[in-house]
């Protein structure tokens, strides 16, 4: 599976990363290099092995439905890039 420049641009956008056109060629080469490593997976016969999402066989623990968190909004907003009127601000979004 080899990626072309356009596909790389697509993937980058999916991850909200931008690649300068001048670097695109290089990035594509690097990614393809890594991909050929990953493609080795295709040659492995995994038989009927189940996919392993977690190394430990545990079930999800459940939490009591209690309010345990205090209002720390002031401290949290102190480190935010831009806030106003208790809100986090981003450039206007048009829906």
């Amino acid at each position: 599976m080899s990626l072309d420049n356009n596909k790389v641009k697509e993937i980058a956008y999916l991850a909200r990363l931008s690649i300068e056109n001048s670097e695109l060629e290089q990035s594509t080469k690097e990614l393809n290099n890594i991909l050929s490593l990953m493609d080795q997976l295709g040659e492995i016969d995994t038989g009927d092995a189940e996919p392993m999402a977690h190394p430990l066989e545990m079930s999800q623990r459940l939490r009591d439905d209690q309010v345990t968190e205090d209002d720390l909004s002031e401290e949290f907003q102190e480190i935010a890039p831009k806030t106003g009127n208790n809100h986090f601000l981003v450039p206007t979004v048009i829906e």
Partner: protein
Amino acid sequence: MMHNLTIAEQIKGLKSRDFSSLELTEHYLSRIDDSELNAFISVTSEQALTQAKMADSILAKGNASGLTGIPYAHKDIFCTKGVKTSAGSKMLDSFISPYDATLSEKLNSQNMVMLGKTNMDEFAMGSSNENSYYGSVKNPWDTKKVPGGSSGGSAAAVASRISPFATGTDTGGSIRQPASLCGITGLKPTYGRISRYGMIAYASSLDQAGPMTRTAEDSAIILNAMAGFDERDSTSANKSVPDYTKNLSKSLKGLKIGLPKEYFSEGLDKGVERVIIQAIKDYEAMGAEIIEVSLPNSMNAIPAYYIVAPCECSSNLSRFDGVRYGYRCDDPKDLNDLYLRSRSEGFGDEVKRRIMIGAYALSAGYYDAYYLKAQKVRQLISEDFKKAFKEVDVIMGPVSPTPAFELGSIKDSVSMYLADIYTLSVNLAGLPGMSIPAGFSDNLPIGLQLIGNHWSEELLLNTAHQFQLKTDWHNASPVD
């Protein structure tokens, strides 16, 4: 010299008032100041001195617990309240964490003294600590060489004795490999042993914190303080914590040691091989039985890991978007611009590569061929170990195929990835693993890897400790 004492010795020294925590702390802070290894991103001197004084007053009262007053270096991947937490990245260069990781809380509650946050590969992605926004870390044994990564700063700090121990994290070998390259003892416990809450996530199903010390005994002491169930982490195991220092002195007679035949093939450097084989002989002399085992899916660990980890990280790193904290680009003109520039300017190249690989592997049409397939291979690798552990107690082998390499010598990602061959499968299977100093090649340290079955940290520490009673490698120092 205080810095040549082990933690066990420092604890005694503090208790018998041979020196105070303040003296110990000032000593280390001064050594850190003189160090040119770039092992630290932040040095928290003021806070450290305050903590040391507090520790001294507790020690004076006579009811101090084990680690009171012991200084340590904290990998900059752990959130520390009120202190910069950067994960080695420009993205978090301005991030003063508003909360403490569980691990940070635990060590604080022991009244320990945090010297500072150590340098690391950005977001834990790397094997040489050359991927840090804050510059590379140097190997104390040869400053032209890499210390290993991603916990390169922690390893260099402990090896150069500018901190008695350091915390590290290991996702594909990031504790064990730098420990090996710097000649110290590094332990990655069983997945779920130590809380991940507040530990900036790289690959959630693989990440695990662990102690980096000079000795196995020190490692056991620290593990006692780090381990334990945390209700804030759903992947934290609800298993009691034994006293890891209790059974260090058990005899190794009859211990069955497995040597995977796949680990001793052509790629292995001759110098490394020599050291490992000698170490095995030493174990034989202690009464252990050496058995050949097979881990047939070993080589498959590389493609499996380099799909699972990027997939998980591509999602874990989506939260870095310039909205609520961290780096935001200047004058974003719209939302897309905000995302694209904040992320592209904030992340380094290796991080961006892995995010893109992950995004691709999870995208429509590729999920089955990559992510799902990788998780199946993971199952196979896990079964290999299960089978092997039916015949042996501990598996041993190299940590890294070569000793520390030159800074800047490995330019392409894939070559760097291939060097993780011995460590990756341990994370994929969630098993505990250690690296202990076992010798030198070309004057550079070589580590021996010990791999145990789930929850066998006691056995691993015992096995490591016995080796350190019989050999002197762990006492070798690149400094006076």
